[in-house]
């Protein structure tokens, strides 16, 4: 199977659209998943932004330096597309609403329902840092590179975001000590 680097060379060298399609097929799930988390579960917006991300990546692929990680670079573009979209639609965007008082999320344990409510309690920078750390298993310096935030800020976003989520989960009586599903795509993320 061709590596990312080989595919990138085929795209930039001979404008091979088949090679680019293979890159999209390979990385779409990670980028769409990342954007779904950033948009707090808004799949429509996430897919639009993911499409923009890949189109911009195609235009700028020649600027990707040899030795740079394509995955990190795609996440950087996705994050910037998300911030740009936020600025553009700052006024009219309907944010995922926090749960109403009295709403018991225990009745909605499904992650697809729980997650948007949960993520709406942290701001977009905290969301991005937490997702990159826990879903992608990235280190703090890598997260800093993607988000353009200083290392100390990344650390404080992660720790503040964690605290908020922990408080929210405890407040809504979600078990934190139960047997977490081992594995998942992430690696050990105790760096956070």
């Amino acid at each position, binding site marked *: 199977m061709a590596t990312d680097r080989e595919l990138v060379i085929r795209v930039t060298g001979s404008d091979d*659209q088949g090679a*680019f*399609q293979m890159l*999209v*097929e*390979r990385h*779409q*799930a*990670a980028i*769409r*998943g990342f954007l*779904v*988390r950033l948009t707090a579960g808004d799949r429509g917006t996430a*897919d639009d932004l*993911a*499409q923009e991300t*890949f*189109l*911009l990546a*195609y*235009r*700028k692929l020649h*600027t*990707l*330096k040899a030795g*740079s990680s394509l995955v990190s*670079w795609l996440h*950087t*573009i996705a994050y*910037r597309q998300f911030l740009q979209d936020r600025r553009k639609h700052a006024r009219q965007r309907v944010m995922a609403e926090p749960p109403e008082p009295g709403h018991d999320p225990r009745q909605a344990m499904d*992650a697809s329902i*729980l*997650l948007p409510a*949960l993520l709406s309690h942290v701001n977009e920078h905290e969301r991005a840092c*937490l*997702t990159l750390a*826990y*879903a992608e298993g990235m280190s703090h310096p890598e997260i800093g590179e993607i988000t*353009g935030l200083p290392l100390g800020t990344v650390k404080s976003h992660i720790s503040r975001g*964690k605290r908020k*989520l*922990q408080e929210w*989960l405890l407040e809504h009586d979600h078990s*934190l*000590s*139960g047997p*977490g*599903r*081992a594995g*998942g*795509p*992430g690696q050990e*993320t*105790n760096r*956070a």
Partner: protein
Amino acid sequence: MPDAFDRKLQELLSYPRPPAPGDDPFVADVMRELRAERRRRHVILGVFGGIGAAFGLAGAAMLLDDIAGVFTRDISAMALTQGALFLAGAAAFYSWFMNDDWSTGG
């Protein structure tokens, strides 16, 4: 507690990431939009390139008799200002047209 919470967060925030099959609607949409964008660019660049070439030819024809003067006459401040404005406009158009984000380089 922090370890259990880390696991919980990892469980909540992770997402499946199987490679998409070739006929995945998202991939198909991206590739379709890519081809449409390339066509649009070719048309726009062709039209603007044609207009530019036509102006260039017309200008060359008009200056043919006095072409040496173009390089020997002093360039006025007004001409310099107009040139700078034109260059800035061209750069702005290019940035908008290419949707360039300089910060994504690298």
